[in-house]
């Protein structure tokens, strides 16, 4: 498949650009933060997104969705990286939909996917137990009891964990941490008895949560997929998540770049535009080249997700690793080239580094994905 957007994808990109820059620019993020919003995103905005069909993009047609694919969805996500727009799009419409679609029973799909597409249900994915992402190390036990299971343990960095209606929780039903086999996924209501949510506002102003499960009882039909065989769906869901996080980081990198380039054409020192200094030109040209690399890896992994390419996991790790590296470069260069004004809260450029770091770390940073890519490649 040619590494270009088709006409429909291009149109979606443009409409997302128009909508987000009008309704959810960076100033909205500042307003949310300053108002001390405990939700971390605007419900009104999410309703508008649902009305435009964005929550339904990855949902198959038979469950009331649009089946427009990952390349399409990522055009919105990339734009939301440019505008730093907070919404449940990643947790619910990407991770939730992917996990349920891959692992869910017919009943679960019918009930849940339609509800997500219609904006009636939000989801959060609870995977990490330690401060570094490593899903195979899942240890939190789910023990069979009667017809159901009892869950005990703690999950961290659960994005949207304090607001989502349902949690998808990775647990261990057999084997030991580090085993691929023995991981099972459960759907748990956030308000179920024994679930305790501690909201943790992150540096990007968005919410995540540390969630404690104390003797949480769930019925057998709360399981998503087969017992002990949840890792495959979990891994594929994380691959999709990382592909879209890469798209978001691409938006962040591009916007940081564009704003900085503009600034270099306005700011004068020593009686000249700073953009006329070769030392800065070379840094900027190198930075631009790195972003060009990023555009290609992101589109490649998204296409592979839509085509069911067997190299999907390797490509997801290549993309996330590369985007972590270049998002770091981009947000750092943006501040350095802006100089002192880049350090001020008043100026918007500083918001990009604050969103980039959590997006880089979520579901594995450069080190995690370089290591994973090497393992997949046989070294």
């Amino acid at each position: 498949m040619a590494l270009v957007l088709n006409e429909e994808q291009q149109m979606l990109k443009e409409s997302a650009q128009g909508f987000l820059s009008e309704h959810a620019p960076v100033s909205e993020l500042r307003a949310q933060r300053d108002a001390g919003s405990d939700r971390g995103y605007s419900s009104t905005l999410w309703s508008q997104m649902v009305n435009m069909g964005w929550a339904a993009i990855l949902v198959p047609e038979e469950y009331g969705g649009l089946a427009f694919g990952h390349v399409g969805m990522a055009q919105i996500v990339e734009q939301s990286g440019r505008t730093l727009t907070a919404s449940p799009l990643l947790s619910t419409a990407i991770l939730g939909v992917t996990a349920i679609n891959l692992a869910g029973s017919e009943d679960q799909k019918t009930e849940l996917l339609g509800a997500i597409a219609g904006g009636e249900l939000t989801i959060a994915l609870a995977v990490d137990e330690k401060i570094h992402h490593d899903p195979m190390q899942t240890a939190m036990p789910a023990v069979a009891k009667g017809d159901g299971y009892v869950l005990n343990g703690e999950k961290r960095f659960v994005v949207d964990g304090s607001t989502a209606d349902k949690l998808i929780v990775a647990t261990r039903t057999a084997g030991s941490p580090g085993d691929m086999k023995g991981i099972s996924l459960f759907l748990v209501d956030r308000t179920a008895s024994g679930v305790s949510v501690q909201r943790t506002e992150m540096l990007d102003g968005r919410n995540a949560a540390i969630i404690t499960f104390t003797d949480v009882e769930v019925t057998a039909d709360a399981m998503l997929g087969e017992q002990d065989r949840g890792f495959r769906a979990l891994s594929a869901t994380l691959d999709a998540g990382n592909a879209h996080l890469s798209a978001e980081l691409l938006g962040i990198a591009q916007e940081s770049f564009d704003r900085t380039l503009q600034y270099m054409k306005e700011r004068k020192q020593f009686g000249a535009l700073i953009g006329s200094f070769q030392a800065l030109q070379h840094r900027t040209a190198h930075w631009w080249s790195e972003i060009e690399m990023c555009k290609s890896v992101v589109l490649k992994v998204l296409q592979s997700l839509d085509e069911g390419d067997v190299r999907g996991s390797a490509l997801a790790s290549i993309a996330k690793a590369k985007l972590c590296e270049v998002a770091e470069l981009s947000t750092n260069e943006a501040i350095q080239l802006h100089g002192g004004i880049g350090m001020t809260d008043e100026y918007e450029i500083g918001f990009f580094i604050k969103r980039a770091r959590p997006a880089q770390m979520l579901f594995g940073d450069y080190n995690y994905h370089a290591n994973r890519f090497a393992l997949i490649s046989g070294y």
Partner: protein
Amino acid sequence: MSDLQVFRQESRDWLEENCPQSMRSPVIAGEGACWGGRNWTFTSEDQKLWLERMGAKGWTAPDWPTEYGGGGLDKAEHKILKEEMARIRARSPLDSFGVWMIGPALLKFGSEALKQQHLPAIIRGEIRWCQGYSEPNAGSDLAGLQSKAVDMGDHFIANGQKVWTSYGDKADWMFCLLRTDPDAKKQMGISLVLFDMETPGVTPKPIKLISGSSPFCETFLDDVRVEKDQVVGEVNQGWTIAKYLLTHEREMIGGMGLTDAGSKTLGAIAAKTVGTTDGRLNDLFMRTDVARWEIDAAAFAFTAERVTDEAKAGQGIGATSAMLKYYGTELNKRRFETMLKIGGSDDLIWEGDISNNGWTARTLLRTKGNSIEGGTSEVQLNIIAKNILGLG
């Protein structure tokens, strides 16, 4: 069957019938490549046969017009031919600065007479070309070149010195930038001229490089007669053509960042050399270097693919050759630094079988020139900053 399907079938049949078995394996590190020309010694009868057959069919220059002996293929057919050659792993019948550089420039800027004179011989691999661009005092600042051609009425007389003439001692003809108007502003007084290397006064001398090989020459021009009908385009308008050729060259050199299909990955070489435990290389710092390089190399390969696809779809910004040249050559340098670390002390041995005559070390040394030739990395960054980013 569609026309393209018919073309595919016919190409497949023809290649099957005409490509000698020994030409169905990749050229590795230049070993077995065919450059043609008057002085060429074929490495085998098959190599000669393969060049003659492909040349006669025009498939050494598949997309050039048939009136000059080219293949006359459109883009879709050219792509199919490449695919069909790759299918049987057929090697290129001819490596040629004629096909890659001066030919396209003649097609775009040359007179009808020049096209008729030079293109057929390039296609058949009979004349080997070299490039006379750089001078001792005109490297990155190419437009500052001083070698001159003085108008003698019915011809020019050229004097000066060129340097970094690739294979100048093996080539038959040179395409050469000379100053034809000493009073004009820098870029405005330059012409692109063609002359036979056997013309009296042309003396190429090989330059020995740090790698030990001598792919380049310095070429002295002492009262060399250049015919007036061998000026490409207008007199004093050569800089436009030179820039066009430099873009072409950048694209070629940028391709170096792409590893040959079928060659072993760095990861595989490293795993074989230092071994693995639980699926991880035993040297963890080497593992980090290798993974970092392979991730960047994948990103670069996808970028080369995307840029090509965008151009086909009429999208994209164009002018990406500077970026590909910059990134690809820097990547290639890192590749060989990593290779040498993997190869260890055996790869430091300059000659002999243990190190395949110092192949890794010599190639590493040669790659240092990648980010200098065809415009340094810094010149590429200047081009990106000025032409793409609009920084003045």
